[in-house]
């Protein structure tokens, strides 16, 4: 056992000084180590892999730990003839080891065994779901994804994560992943930048994570759409309408060959509702959507469009009618919850719109112009006060001195804002501008590097250009002389 343990815990040396030669050496060692771990019969049937696992560190011996853990899980599956034996269920011995590993593995080492890593994540997630503890699978999956950090690359694990979040009703835990920008699929093996080593920390993930690496199960067009639709549903559950709308935009603006998928139509319906709830109106559809796709959306989501028209026009009677008529549709589309929020949003946006016409009005006047449900002046005042107090509208309230006097609502407070308050906001705006400039500067530097526009490279290019200009001059003078270029160059040199 001691020989095998010594070999398993012999971590390939990771270079401190990053050079191509050092990376090449480390890359070779890791590849050899993985080949060694993949040998059939590596673990003698008489030995207990658990002893090895206890002796190994998941953060230092990540590859050994992962292979041994997978081996032990397979053994347990064979022994119990079950895909998910008790020991891999939450709280079991293998579960604890798996979760410990997913929270502490070395992401560089794991780049050499992404397939095994993904299979472990999938197993942990399905064990959590089958034992009705999806939240445990969600947290482990999120931590594993954050640790691996395949930034910008969409994988099947991303889709798994949002499904787990919706399944467990634990939305905030998914935000660190859903907030990330995803703009790549695992790179096609044929288009990999072969100049990078897998262990290189400088190399962009797109150059390292390929479809052949196993980081993701086979992805389809549907998976991509589902991920953004489910992410939008997470944001909607948290009433983050802007983010929800952004995700839904991705779905409805996805390229189509001929037919529009059901997911896209579903997303379009939710897109209408999310925008009504967040902005009180439907923005124009993204320009990249072709007109025939928009026509399909509009014909398939007609009840939603009629509802939105009534909402935008402030026609409460028509909106209520549309909502009543469409009950079966909202229910079938599972949008009843969103539609039911429209009444409060209607009141909110009607009151906010009053600010465009009036600078001040009494609560009685507000009551006359709004209210989707019968409210008394006290209730409408509470509602308006809640809008003002939550900063949903810029206004102030003022009680009148007499006992029966009404409350005054003053809108459009731009000029009346407290000077100190204004100063704070100007300061915050300046800070935001500074942050923006810093981010842009950082991005420009990064882009320069990516496009090889670094200072050193520019100097080199300038020198090369100078050299070629002087060479051209020589060539030109040579031409005038009518001699051969090579000869003239040689002549200049003389």
């Amino acid at each position, binding site marked *: 056992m001691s020989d095998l343990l010594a070999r398993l815990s012999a971590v390939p040396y990771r270079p401190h000084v990053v050079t191509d030669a050092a990376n090449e050496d480390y890359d070779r060692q890791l590849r050899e180590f993985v080949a060694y771990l993949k040998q059939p019969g590596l673990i003698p049937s008489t030995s207990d892999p658990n002893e090895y696992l206890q002796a190994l560190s998941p953060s230092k011996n990540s590859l050994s730990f992962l292979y041994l853990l997978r081996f032990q899980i397979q053994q347990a599956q064979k022994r119990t003839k079950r895909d998910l034996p008790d020991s891999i269920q939450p709280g079991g011995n293998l579960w604890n080891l798996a979760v410990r590993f997913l929270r502490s593995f070395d992401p560089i080492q794991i780049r050499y065994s992404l397939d095994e890593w993904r299979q472990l994540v999938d197993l942990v997630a399905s064990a959590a779901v089958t034992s009705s503890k999806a939240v445990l699978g969600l*947290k482990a999956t999120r931590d594993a994804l954050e640790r691996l950090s395949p930034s910008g690359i969409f994988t099947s694990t991303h889709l798994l994560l949002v499904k787990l979040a919706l399944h467990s009703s634990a939305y905030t835990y998914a935000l660190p992943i859903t907030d990330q920008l995803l*703009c790549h699929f695992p790179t096609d093996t044929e288009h990999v930048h072969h100049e990078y080593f897998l262990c290189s920390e400088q190399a962009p993930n797109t150059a390292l994570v390929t479809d052949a690496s196993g980081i993701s199960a086979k992805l389809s067009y549907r998976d991509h759409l589902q991920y953004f639709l489910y992410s939008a549903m997470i944001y909607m559950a*948290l009433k983050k309408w802007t983010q929800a709308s952004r995700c839904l935009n991705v779905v409805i603006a996805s390229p189509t060959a001929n037919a529009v998928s059901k997911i896209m139509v579903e997303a379009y319906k939710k897109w209408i509702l999310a925008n009504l709830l967040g902005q009180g109106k439907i923005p124009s559809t993204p320009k990249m959507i072709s007109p025939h796709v928009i026509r399909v959306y509009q014909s398939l989501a007609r009840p939603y469009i009629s509802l939105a028209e009534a909402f935008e026009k402030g026609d409460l009677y028509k909106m209520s009618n549309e909502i009543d008529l469409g009950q079966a549709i909202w229910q079938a589309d599972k949008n009843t919850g969103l539609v039911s929020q429209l009444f409060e949003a209607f009141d909110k946006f009607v009151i906010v719109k009053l600010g465009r016409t009036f600078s001040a009005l009494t609560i009685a006047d507000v009551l006359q112009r709004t209210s989707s449900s019968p409210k008394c002046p006290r209730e409408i005042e509470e509602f308006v006060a809640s809008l*003002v107090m939550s900063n949903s509208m810029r206004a102030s309230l003022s009680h*009148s001195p007499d006992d029966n006097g009404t409350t005054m609502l003053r809108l459009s407070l731009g000029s009346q804002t407290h000077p100190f*308050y204004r100063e704070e906001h100007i300061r915050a705006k300046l800070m935001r501008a500074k942050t923006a400039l810093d981010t*842009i500067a950082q*991005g420009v530097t990064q882009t320069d590097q990516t496009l090889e526009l670094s200072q050193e490279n520019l100097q080199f290019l300038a020198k090369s250009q100078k050299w070629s200009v002087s060479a051209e001059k020589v060539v030109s003078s040579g031409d005038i002389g009518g001699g051969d270029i090579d000869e003239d160059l040689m002549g200049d040199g003389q």
Partner: protein
Amino acid sequence: MDLPPLSLDQLSAVLSTVPTSADLYNTLSDYEEQACLISAKEVELLSVFYTTFFFSHLLTDQIEEARALTKRMPQPILQTDSIQNCLLLLRAVWQRKHAGIYKILRELPWPNRAQSVVRSYENYFQQKTLNEVSNSYEAIKPAAAATYLGLDPALAQQGDQETIQKFTACGWKWDPETQLLHPNPVITAPPKDNGLQTELSRVMALISH
């Protein structure tokens, strides 16, 4: 790092040591995993844990996620007094029923182990409301102000000096002629906006790639 096992004593230790509400929320989020693995028979421990965790959501203004938490709590504890009180409180907070919120916090029975977090939330909610009222009202009747801040509206309406003093101590002005309070706006730094940076980073990332 492995957390010490979840127990009533450990919960009390966490409540007395964490410096901020965000830390309390983060620590209890980590403990949620242990709570999921505890037998449903441990009703007291689970009830106190989920009550405390629920309040940590309110203390960090995560009302929607607090609602989601109530949907994933283990079934057996949903009927406990403490969790039922949480559900009533959630409804009152959701509907911004200030009088109801103070009543629930002060008058309903809460587990002894959760008393400190309940009191923390009461103070937090009162202070938050004070800031909101200060920035929203130019003039307010004492009874309305008292309702917002969990004071006795009847006493305030009668011009009770002690109650009025509580408002003037916050910088508000009392006009005895009109019997109105004039709040003093609270200058708070606008919330830090990370959205812009995220959006710009996205654009720059797209350009870079």
